[in-house]
C-alpha cells in the first residue's frame, strides 16, 4: 500500500517533471525562418535536418522542408514531401479520445498535430502549384482537393442547433482561381471556369484581376489564336506564426473562482497563479511587397494578392478562439479537481501537506505551454499575374519590389515557353532580400 508521504512525494515529482517542459515549436523553428527569409536555403535546410534528427513533429518539418525544396528549384521533391505531409496530417485529423484526455492533464502539445484549417487547405494548394511547376499532370486533381477540403472543413463544424463557427471563415480564393485557369485551358469547360472565377471575385473582392477573368470565362476565350498564357505565381513575405499569449482576464476570473470554491469546499484548491496560455497567430509579413514582371521592353504588370495567408489565419483563429479558451479552462478544472481528489483521498484539509499539494498543483498548471506548432515557412501572401503572349519562347524579367514600390534585391530573367492555346507557369518565392532561390518555369 502506498503511504501518504510516498503519494505526496510522487505528486511533487510528477509536477516537477511536468514543469520542466521544453522550448515551444516556434522558438525552435525561429532560426529556420530567419535563414529562409534572408535567402539562405542551405542553412535553412541544415537546420530543418537537425530538427528532424531530434524526432519532433515530422509532418510540420516536412512541410517546411518542402518549401525549402521548392525555393531551391526542386518541385518534384517538394511535391513528394507535401504529399507525404498531407497524408500524415490526414491520418491524425480524427480526434483521439486518449490524446484529448491526456491533453487535459498536460497541455495541447501532447495531441498529434493535424494542422490548422488554413494549413490543411494550403497544403493542397501548394501541391497544385508544385505540380504546375512541373508537368501539371495531377494539378487538376489537386485543385479539386483544395476545393473539397475547404468545403469539408466548414461542413464538419456544423452544430446540431444549425450554427457553424467556421461559416465565417475567409475562404482561400487561390483554390477556385487554380480550378478556373485549369478549366479555361480546356477551351471547353468555360462554364466551370466562370463558376470558379465567380467564387474568386466573391471571396477576394479586392483582387482587381477577378472581374476580367470572370468576363473572359463568361464570354471570351482562353487566348487569341497563336497566343498562350503565362501565369506567374509569387509566394511573398513571411507567413503567420504562433506566439504564446497569456489570457489575463480569464486567469483572473479563474483565480476568483478558486477562492470562492476553496471557501465553499473548506479545502484549498491550487490558486490560478500561472496564467492560461493560448497560441495567438501573429502576422509579420516582412519587407517584400510584390513582383514586377517585364517582357522585353514591355512592363507587363505586377503580381496581385489572391490569398492573404496571414489575414486568413488570424480570422480563422478569431472564429475558433472561444473553443480554444473553453478547452484551456476545462483543463484547469481537471487539474484542480485532481489535486482536490488527492487531498480528499488522503483526508487532508489543511496544514503543510495540503499546502505542498497546492504548490505542486500550481507547478503543474504552470507547466502548460501554448501549442505554437504551425507551418512556419508559408508565405504571407500568394500573388498572381496572368500574361497573354504569342506562342514561342520569351524571357521574362522579374523584379521583387518592397511595400513602398522600391526594388528589393536583384532582378532575375527567366525563359518561358508559351504554347498556342495553352498555359505555362512561373513560380517564385520572395523574401526580405529579394528572391529566395530562383523562379521555376513549367515545362510544357
Amino acid at each position, binding site marked *: 500500500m502506498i503511504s501518504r508521504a510516498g503519494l505526496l512525494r510522487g505528486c511533487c515529482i510528477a509536477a516537477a517533471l511536468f514543469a520542466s517542459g521544453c522550448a515551444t515549436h516556434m522558438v525552435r523553428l525561429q532560426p529556420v525562418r530567419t535563414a529562409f527569409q534572408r535567402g539562405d536555403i542551405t542553412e535553412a535546410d541544415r537546420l530543418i535536418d537537425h530538427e528532424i534528427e531530434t524526432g519532433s513533429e515530422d509532418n510540420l518539418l516536412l512541410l517546411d522542408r518542402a518549401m525549402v525544396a521548392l525555393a531551391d528549384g526542386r518541385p518534384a521533391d517538394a511535391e513528394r514531401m507535401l504529399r507525404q505531409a498531407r497524408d500524415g496530417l490526414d*491520418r*491524425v485529423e*480524427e*480526434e*483521439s*479520445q*486518449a*490524446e*484529448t*484526455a*491526456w491533453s*487535459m*492533464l498536460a497541455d495541447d502539445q501532447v495531441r*498529434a498535430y493535424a494542422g490548422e484549417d488554413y494549413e490543411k487547405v494550403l497544403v493542397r494548394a501548394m501541391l497544385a502549384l508544385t505540380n504546375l511547376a512541373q508537368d501539371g499532370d495531377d494539378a487538376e*486533381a489537386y485543385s*479539386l482537393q483544395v*476545393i*473539397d477540403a475547404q468545403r469539408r472543413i466548414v*461542413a464538419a463544424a456544423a452544430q446540431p442547433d*444549425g450554427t457553424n463557427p467556421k461559416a465565417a471563415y475567409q475562404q482561400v480564393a487561390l483554390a477556385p482561381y487554380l480550378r478556373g485557369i485549369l478549366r479555361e485551358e*480546356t*477551351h*471547353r*469547360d*468555360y*462554364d*466551370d471556369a466562370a*463558376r470558379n472565377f465567380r467564387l474568386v471575385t466573391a471571396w477576394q473582392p479586392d483582387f482587381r484581376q477577378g472581374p476580367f477573368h470572370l468576363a473572359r470565362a463568361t464570354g471570351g*476565350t*482562353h*487566348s*487569341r*489564336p497563336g497566343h498562350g498564357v503565362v501565369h506567374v505565381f509569387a509566394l511573398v513575405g513571411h507567413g503567420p506564426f504562433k506566439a504564446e499569449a497569456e489570457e489575463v482576464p480569464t486567469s483572473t476570473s479563474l483565480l476568483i473562482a478558486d477562492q470562492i*470554491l476553496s471557501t*465553499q*469546499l*473548506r479545502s484549498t484548491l491550487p490558486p490560478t497563479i500561472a496564467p492560461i496560455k493560448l497560441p495567438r497567430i501573429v502576422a509579420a509579413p516582412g519587407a517584400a511587397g510584390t513582383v514586377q514582371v517585364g517582357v522585353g521592353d514591355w512592363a507587363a504588370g505586377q503580381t496581385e494578392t489572391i490569398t492573404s495567408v496571414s489575414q486568413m489565419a488570424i480570422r480563422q483563429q478569431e472564429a475558433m478562439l472561444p473553443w480554444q479558451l473553453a478547452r484551456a479552462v476545462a483543463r484547469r*478544472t*481537471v487539474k*484542480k*479537481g*485532481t489535486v*482536490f*481528489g488527492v487531498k*480528499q483521498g488522503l483526508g487532508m484539509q489543511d496544514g503543510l501537506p495540503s499546502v505542498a499539494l497546492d504548490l505542486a498543483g500550481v507547478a503543474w498548471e504552470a507547466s502548460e505551454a501554448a501549442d505554437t506548432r504551425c507551418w512556419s515557412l508559408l508565405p504571407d501572401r500568394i500573388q498572381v499575374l496572368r500574361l497573354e503572349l504569342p506562342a514561342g519562347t520569351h524571357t521574362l524579367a522579374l523584379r521583387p519590389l518592397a511595400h513602398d514600390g522600391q526594388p528589393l534585391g536583384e532582378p532575375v530573367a527567366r525563359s518561358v515557353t508559351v504554347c*498556342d*492555346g495553352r498555359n505555362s507557369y512561373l513560380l517564385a518565392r520572395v523574401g526580405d532580400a529579394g528572391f529566395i532561390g530562383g523562379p521555376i518555369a513549367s515545362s510544357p
Partner: protein
Amino acid sequence: MSRVDRPGRLDRRTFLRRGLKPLPLAVLATAAAGCRSMQFARVMAPGEDGMIGSHQAGQETFTPLVNDAVAKLLARHVESAVQQVAYVEGAEPLPPPTKRICFVGVENKSAEEIGDFKEQIYQAIDARILESQVFQSVNRRFVDAGLRDTRLRPDQLLIPEHMRAFTAHMDQQGQPIDYLLYATITSGTTQQNRDYQRDYVLTLELVEVGTGSYDKQSAELSKGYHHSRLGRWRAAHSSSP
C-alpha cells in the same frame, strides 16, 4: 433549520465535492479507452448499392440520368436508322452510313459544383454512344484540338458562321461531323423548412450541322435532402396511403 438538516436536498458543498472527485478518474478512463480510429476501404461488388450523396448529387443521381437520357436518345435514332435502310430487289439491304457525332461537352448549370463527376459523365455518355453503333463519336482529343485551334467556345458553335468554320476545320483534320452533341445538367430546388427537394435534369441536345435541326432528350431524377432521420422517414411515408 440548517441546509444539511433538510432531507432530500443536496448541500452545495457536497455537490461540489461529489462533482470534482471523480473528474480525474473520468479523464484517465477516457485516456485509457480511446484511440484514434483509422480509415478503411473496400472494393464494392458489381451491382452492390452505392453510397447516396447526403449533401449533393453523386453516382446515385448521375448514373441513372446518363443511362436514361442516352438510352432514350439512341432508341429514337435506331428507329430512324432502320427506316432509312434502302431495299433493292435481289440485293442485300445496306445499312445507312453511321452518323458522326462530335460530343462537345457537358455543361453544368445546376446549383451544385459537380467536381470530378463532369469528366465521368462525359466519358460515360461518350462510351455509351460508341457502344450503340448507331452513331460514331469523334475522339475527344480531336474535339478539344478543334476548339483550341479555332478558339471557338462550345456555346458559339451554334452560330451558323462558327458552325461552318468548326465543321470545315474538323473536315481538314480528317474528322468530318454530322451532329454536335451537348449535354447540360440543370437543377431546381424546392425548400420545405430545413429540408429540400432538388430535381436534376440531364438534357442531351443533338444538332445536325447540315440543316441546324435538332433533337432533344431529357432524363429527370428528384432527390430529397433531410436534416434528420425523422424528416427522411416522414417524407418517405407522407405519400403512402
